[in-house]
C-alpha cells in the first residue's frame, strides 16, 4: 500500500496485536462489549481516536483512524462500529456545543454514548421532558443519546430500555428506548445528513475490514480443506472468484488510503461487501453456516452495514456528485 508510511504500518501492527492479545471475538458476540473492554480500548486511545487531545483523545488523522477501523472490523466488526459511533457520529454531533466537554468521559471510556442513525420517523413529544419510544438503537446501554428529529437533540439517561436480538454487530446492545427524559436541542437543524455523508470513508474502512476478514478466512480455508481428493485452492471456479475478491479488497484499500473520492470509495465498498462476505460463507460449505468458524458474522454484519447505511439517498448523493448538480428525479 503505497500511501501508507512506516508509522501507519506500525499502527496497523499495534491494533492487530491488541486484538489478538486482548479480545475474544466470539465472546464479544455472545456476551457483548463490557466495561473491561471499554476501558481497555480507552486506555490505548482507540475510543477517542479522533477526539481532541484536550479531551484526552488521540486526535488521529484520517488515515490512522481508518487503519484502526479496518483492523478492528477485520477482527470484530462490533468493536469497529462502537469506535465509529463515537468518533464519526457522536463527536461531530456535539462538537462546538456546550456538550463538547462530554467527550472527556467518552474518550476515557467512562461514558457510553449512542447516536440514533437508523430511524427516519420519530413520534416524540417535547415538553419539559422528551417522551416517546425510539426503536432500533445500537448501544442501548448509553448514558446519553443523540437524536435527529428534524433537529439535533441530546437526551440524557438513564433510559428505560427493551433489549432485542439483533442479527448484526452482536457485540453491541440493541433494542428500543422508552423516553421520559431531560433533553437539550444542540442544533435547530438535523446534523444527520452531513454527518453521514462525512462518514463515508469511515464506513468504507469498516467495510474493508469485513471484506478483508472474509477473504482471509476463505483463502486460508481453501489452502487446507480437501474435497474430491484435492485442495479447494486447486478448483478453478472457486479460486478465480476468490482471487477477484482479493483484488477488490486491495483496490478498495488503495482508493480508501489514497483518499481518491469518498463517494466512489463508499459506492465501491457497499457494492462489494455483501457479495464477498457471502462467498466466504459458501467457500466454507456447511461449516460456514455455523458461528464457530467466525465467518457467518461477516455476512450478517455486511448486510446490516449495506442495508442501514446505503440506499436510495446515498445513490442520489453519488449521482449529484457525478453530475455536479442537484438532480431532480421523476
Amino acid at each position, binding site marked *: 500500500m503505497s500511501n501508507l508510511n512506516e508509522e501507519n504500518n506500525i499502527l496497523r501492527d499495534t491494533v492487530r496485536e491488541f486484538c489478538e492479545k486482548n479480545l475474544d471475538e466470539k465472546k464479544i458476540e455472545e456476551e457483548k462489549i463490557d466495561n473491561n473492554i471499554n476501558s481497555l480500548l480507552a486506555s490505548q486511545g482507540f475510543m477517542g481516536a479522533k477526539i481532541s487531545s484536550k479531551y484526552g483523545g488521540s486526535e488521529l488523522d484520517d488515515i490512522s483512524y481508518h487503519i484502526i477501523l479496518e483492523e478492528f472490523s477485520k477482527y470484530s466488526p462490533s468493536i469497529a462500529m462502537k469506535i465509529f459511533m463515537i468518533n464519526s457520529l457522536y463527536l461531530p454531533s456535539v462538537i462546538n456545543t456546550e456538550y463538547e466537554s462530554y467527550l472527556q468521559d467518552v474518550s476515557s471510556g467512562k461514558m457510553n454514548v449512542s447516536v440514533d442513525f437508523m430511524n427516519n420517523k420519530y413520534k416524540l413529544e417535547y415538553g419539559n421532558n422528551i417522551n416517546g419510544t425510539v426503536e432500533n438503537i445500537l448501544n442501548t446501554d448509553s448514558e446519553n443519546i443523540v437524536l435527529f428529529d428534524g433537529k439535533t437533540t441530546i437526551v440524557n439517561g438513564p433510559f428505560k430500555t427493551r433489549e432485542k*436480538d439483533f442479527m448484526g454487530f452482536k457485540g453491541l446492545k440493541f433494542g428500543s428506548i422508552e423516553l421520559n427524559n431531560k433533553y437539550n436541542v444542540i442544533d435547530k437543524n438535523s446534523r444527520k445528513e452531513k454527518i453521514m455523508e462525512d462518514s463515508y470513508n469511515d464506513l468504507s474502512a469498516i467495510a474493508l475490514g469485513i471484506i478483508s476478514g472474509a477473504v482471509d478466512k476463505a483463502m486460508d480455508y481453501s489452502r487446507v480443506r480437501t474435497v*474430491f481428493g484435492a485442495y479447494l485452492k486447486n478448483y478453478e471456479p472457486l479460486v478465480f472468484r476468490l482471487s477477484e475478491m482479493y483484488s477488490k479488497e486491495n483496490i478498495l484499500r488503495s482508493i480508501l488510503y489514497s483518499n481518491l473520492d469518498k463517494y466512489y470509495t463508499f459506492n465501491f465498498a457497499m457494492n462489494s461487501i455483501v457479495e464477498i462476505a457471502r462467498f466466504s460463507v*459458501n467457500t466454507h460449505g456447511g461449516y460456514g453456516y*455455523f*458461528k464457530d468458524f467466525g465467518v457467518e458474522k461477516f455476512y450478517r454484519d455486511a448486510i446490516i452495514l449495506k442495508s*442501514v447505511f446505503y440506499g436510495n439517498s446515498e445513490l442520489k448523493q453519488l449521482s449529484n456528485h457525478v453530475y455536479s448538480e442537484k438532480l431532480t428525479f*421523476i
Partner: protein
Amino acid sequence: MFEEYDDYRKQIREFGLKEFTDEVAAKYDRGEEYPDYLRKKSLSLGIVDMQNPAKILIAIEELCRIDAGLGISVTTPYFGAEVLMLFGNDKQKEFLNDVYSGKYVLGLGVTEASGGSDVAHIKTTATKKGDKYILNGSKMFITNGAIADYLVVLARTSDEDKPHHGLSTFLLNTKLNGFKANKLTGKLGVRATNTAELTFDNIELSSEDLIGEEGKGFYYIMTFFNISRIYVAAQGLGIAEGAFDKILEYVKANEIKDENTMFEIADVATRIEATKELTYNAASYLFKFEPRPQLTSMAKAYAGETAVYASEKAMEILGANSLEENVERIFRNAKIMEIWEGTSEVEKLVISRFILKGE
C-alpha cells in the same frame, strides 16, 4: 402448473399462517429448538402427505414462504424415506407407515466432516462379521440427527478401486448401543431444525438392516438426492416468495414509488417466476418417473441463489426496518439453500456433465 392443487395450497397456507406466527417462529429460532408439537399437529391435520410428491412440494413451498425454520422442521421428519421406498425390502417399506403416521422421526446420515458434497470418499465403515455388520465412524451436519428414531446411513462395506463402489445403505435404529448424537448449535439460520454430529462406535447391525443390495449405496443416495433436491428448490422458492411478500408489504404501506425500487421489485419478481417455472418443470418430470437430474440441479441451484438474492433485496429495500425479526430471519434462513443437499458449485458440475453427455 399444479393448479389442481390450488385448494390444497390454500389449506397449507392457512395452516402456516395460523401456526407459524412471528412469536412462534422467533421463539424456536432463538432457542434453537425443534417444534415437535407442530410436526404432530401437521400430521394430525393431514397437512403433509408423503404419498403425493406434488403435495409435498407445495407444502414445502408454502410453509417456507411463511417461515423456513418451522416449514422445514415440519416437512423433514421423513427425510431419507425415498431410499426405503425405492430400494428397501418389504419390512422396511412397511416401516415407513410408522414414519408417515408420526410414530417415528427419520433422518439421513451421509455427510461427513471430511467432505460435505464428496459422498464417494466417506470414511464410515460397516464391516461384515458373520451375518452382522459392525458400524464405525461419524457423520456431520445431519438434519434430525439428535431427534431421529431411525436413520438411513451410508457406510463403506468394501474397498474398491473406484471410491463410489463398495458403499452400502443401512436403516439404523438410534437406540442401539454405540450411537451418539451431539446437537450442533450456533447456526446462522433455520435454527428450529435439528442438526447433529453423529458417532457410531461398534454398532451391531443385522443383515436385515441393509437397504437394497450391498455395494449399491452410492447409487441409491445419488438417486435420492436427485429427488430431494427438488424439495430443496421448493424451500428456496418459498423463502424467496416470503422475502418478496415482505418487500411488497413495506413498499405499499410506505407508498414508496421511486423508480429504482420499482426496478428492484421487477427484478426480484422475475427471478421468482423463473425459479417457479424451473422448479415445477423439473418436478413434473420427476413425478412422472422420468427424472432429468440436470433440470433438478438447475432448479435447486437457481432457487438457492434466488432465495439469497430476494432476502438480501428485502434487507436492502427495507433498510433499518429490516431489523424486525421476521425479515432478518428470512435473510439468515436463505443462505443454507446454497449449501445443503449439494452446494451450488456441485449442482453446476452436475448440470454441465449431463449437458455434455447430451442427456
